[in-house]
């Protein structure tokens, strides 16, 4: 892991318009899907983005990919500002940032063979016009993704493969372009528990062998415990806590992180612990609470929380959390 930053995100915002303006009302409501996010990722680093539905993690990844246009802020990839580039340049960038999706059953076109699926990126970018060379790249990508021997998979259709195998095909499709950054949006949550580790170990190996940086989006912190270097916890469009794995797991500072960690079930009945179960649901990202966004559900909120919206405050060199009660109170 070098000190060279592959990705720098500054003050990123992505708002969606809620409802449509009609003759009767000019609906100015916005869904604050991503609301002022800062993020730095080093080459070869893995960062886990954790949060529940509505926190903006998926929108963030789509915006980073350029599949959604940023409303404000900047995204700097390998030193170049890619926030508002034109289609032609965007296409070039797509070779270096690739995505892996959540649903292995839907991410693949059912009418295409595995070979067609993994070759498609090469065709789109006009890489390796020589047929043999192309086929060799596809074969290598499939084997790097763990599908060996590649020949036996080339002519099959997605419905003939299991969920884990399909996900490997998606990864192969991403690898064939030799990307530098991989955005994995919940890549294992739809797979059986006993095969999740395979995919995660695959990503870990790829990081080691190819130096690919990974942004791993998940709602289940347990799966990335040993794989991610850092963790960022998101709530209502913001990062509320960020630090190394050890920082966040052993010394969580934000009440939301503390609650989240307490309700993640631990597979040992002897360790049944007191769970902080937050009441209610994540509020509507259109109508944001005043002050700290978390205060309506926060078990330890005090008066100033209703007025002041905290930025990320430094806890240690590697650890930050956006809470006014930092280092003072831990929820019990």
């Amino acid at each position, binding site marked *: 892991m070098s000190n060279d930053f592959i990705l720098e995100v500054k003050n990123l915002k992505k708002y969606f318009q809620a409802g449509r303006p009609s003759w009767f009302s000019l609906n100015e409501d916005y869904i604050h899907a991503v609301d002022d996010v800062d993020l730095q990722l080093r080459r070869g680093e893995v960062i886990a983005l954790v949060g*529940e*539905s509505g926190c903006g993690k998926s929108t963030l990844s789509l915006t980073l990919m350029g*599949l959604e246009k940023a409303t404000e802020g900047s995204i700097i990839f390998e030193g170049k500002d890619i926030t508002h580039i034109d289609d032609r340049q*965007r296409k070039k960038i*797509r*070779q270096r940032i*690739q*995505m892996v*999706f959540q*649903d292995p059953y*839907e*991410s693949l*076109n*059912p*009418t*295409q*063979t595995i*070979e*067609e699926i993994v070759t*498609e*990126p090469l*065709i*789109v970018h006009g890489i390796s016009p020589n*047929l043999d060379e192309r086929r060799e790249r*596809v074969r290598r990508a499939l084997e790097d993704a763990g599908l060996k021997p590649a020949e036996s998979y080339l002519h099959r*259709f997605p*419905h003939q493969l299991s*969920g*884990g195998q399909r996900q490997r095909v*998606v990864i192969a499709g991403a690898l064939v372009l030799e990307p530098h950054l991989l955005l994995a949006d919940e890549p294992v949550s739809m797979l*059986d*528990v*006993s095969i*999740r*580790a*395979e995919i*995660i*170990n695959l990503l870990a190996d790829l990081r080691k062998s190819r130096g690919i940086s990974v942004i791993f989006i998940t709602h289940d*912190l*347990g*799966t990335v*415990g*040993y794989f991610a270097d850092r963790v960022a916890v998101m709530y209502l469009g913001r990062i509320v806590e960020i630090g190394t794995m050890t920082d966040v*797991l052993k010394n969580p500072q934000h009440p939301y992180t503390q609650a*989240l960690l307490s*309700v*993640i*079930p*631990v*597979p*040992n*009945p002897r*360790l*049944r612990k007191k*769970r902080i*179960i*937050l*009441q209610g*649901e*994540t509020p509507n990202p259109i109508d944001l609470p005043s002050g700290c966004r978390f205060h309506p559900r926060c078990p330890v909120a005090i008066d100033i929380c209703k007025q002041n919206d905290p930025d990320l405050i430094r806890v240690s060199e590697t650890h930050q959390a956006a809470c006014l009660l930092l280092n003072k109170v831990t929820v019990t």
Partner: protein
Amino acid sequence: MAVQTVELKPSTGSLSRPSSWTTLGKNRIGLVGLIMLVAAVVVAVFASVLAPYDPKTSEGITSSDIYQRPSSAHLLGTDDAGKDVLSSFIYGSRVSLIVGFFAAFISIVIGGIIGIVAGFYGGRLENILMRFTDTMLVIPDLPLIIVIVALTKPSLLNIIFVIGLLGWTTTARLVRSQTLAVKSRKFVLRARAIGAGNWHIIQHHILPLVLPLLVVNAILVISLAILEESTLSFLGLGDPTVISWGQMLNFAFGRGAMSAGAWWALVAPGFGIVWIVLALTLLGHGLEQVLNPRLESHHLMPGRPAVQQEAMLGISARSSRNPKPVVLDIQNLSIHYISEDKPPARAVENVSFQLHEGELMGLVGESGCGKTTLMMALMKLLPAAGQIVNGKVLFNNQDLTAMSEEEIADVRWSAISIIFQGAMNALNPVRTVGEQIAEAIKKHVAIYHEAQVDERVSELLELVGIAEEHKDHFPHQYSGGMRQRAMIAMALACSPQVVIADEPTTALDVMIQAQILELLDDLRKKLGLAIIFVTHDLGVVAEMCDSVLVMYGGVTAEYASVDTIYNAPRHPYTQELLKAFPDLSKPEKRLSSIPGYPPKLDALPVGCRFAPRCPLAFERCFIEMPALHSLNGGDHIASCHLVEN
């Protein structure tokens, strides 16, 4: 080869699945239609060979030949001009088919292009195109065609164009809907993420999935075009220089075939039109079935009473640890899926467990292990192909497997209820949640007054933590967590003793999951429920359950108290599964996985079902299926040769 295969395959677009040709072959309706159509095409192509006379010439025809009855010289008699009806009939097929195919081709191309462009690009373009389509749809086709043809030259080419140019509207709408549906699928997003442009996406992703629909629609459009041509000709607007079936009818009617009693002059062309349209309709119907295979074995049929074989000597897990009475006693239950042409899929074999009052049992297993089949069988909700072939389901000492459909309908919901997997999406979107809960109550409890039902609904909503005001809201106004609570309320409507929760928290956020689990636990304590919690999430099971049944490949792998399962598991599958499950208390631990895949139920291995993936397997495991061995005097059961005493 890679480059060639990404080209469009229009004729095989609908046959991307390798078995589609065989499916079409098996589909009798489609096959009949196809044969009929091929017959008509053959007749048209070989008309000059098949027709005994040339209908264009009037050589050797005298006035005495008019309306002659069918005879050996004229198999279908003669028409008003003395010409052979059979020959005209054979040549007439050409015109019908030509007009039909070409006009339909024009319609399909126009409709297809408009549909794809509108559906894919959306926005104002879509608006304009679709409003134009709507306008054209509103205008009645036939009168418009009649007017246009009457005003212009009635030539065959003209007719083809007019029919084609007005017949694209339904195709356009159909194609647009399908384009919209395909556009929103995840693999299209993935194609964009790869960097594909619009044209690439349309060509490689949209078209192959729109084509099957287009093919079916084309068949219909062809038959409509043929009908329209026949109508036009019958009305005298057809091309007078060509013989078509419609023309034949026109002349026959107009020139006194009825009064002359010359039925053959009318029946023959009428029959031709009917034959072709029927052929196309049947073919279209058959193709539709090929493209949307609906499993015939899906509807719920009253189960045949279980075949009581000799009770296999399994060991029922009598647990001495729980003093409460047993509510549900499953003994050696086996369920097979029977299909006509394959050996039965042994979905569940010889599973036993006991559920005590107030107990929370976790049923753990991964995809294909049979846990959902097992739960469905308890309430006899299996599809027609699923049969209980052995064992007993004793509910308060009544054997449910021996009950009739009426008897078990009483038991369902009032004694045992179930929260289905993905239940949050099972609510009817057009009725209020309150109404749906009321429905569950009314079906089972004889309450006469609406007010009593209403009160009970409010009571239930309160029990699950939904505010009263939401009673008259619709499901889309509820969040995911709330919908799940509503499903729980429905399951409790008739105060059951046992509730089966099939993966109730799978699609929910971890915090909502915690809320729902807390709710279930509270309800259990408050109402004295026994709950079977089906899941693949070991963490949840560890948190909540009293006992655990681990299933693999349709059989019991291990069954014991929750502490034993987690801290002293004896079955290798349980051990491996625990290793694969993340544990936040030890975050540095590298997760392991179990290599391989669960067995397919119709191709089960001989011997232990887990042997192919088991790190501790030895010779015997591949030959002999392990029995259910009991440890600790019946409190702990594991089906493994290594556990044998």
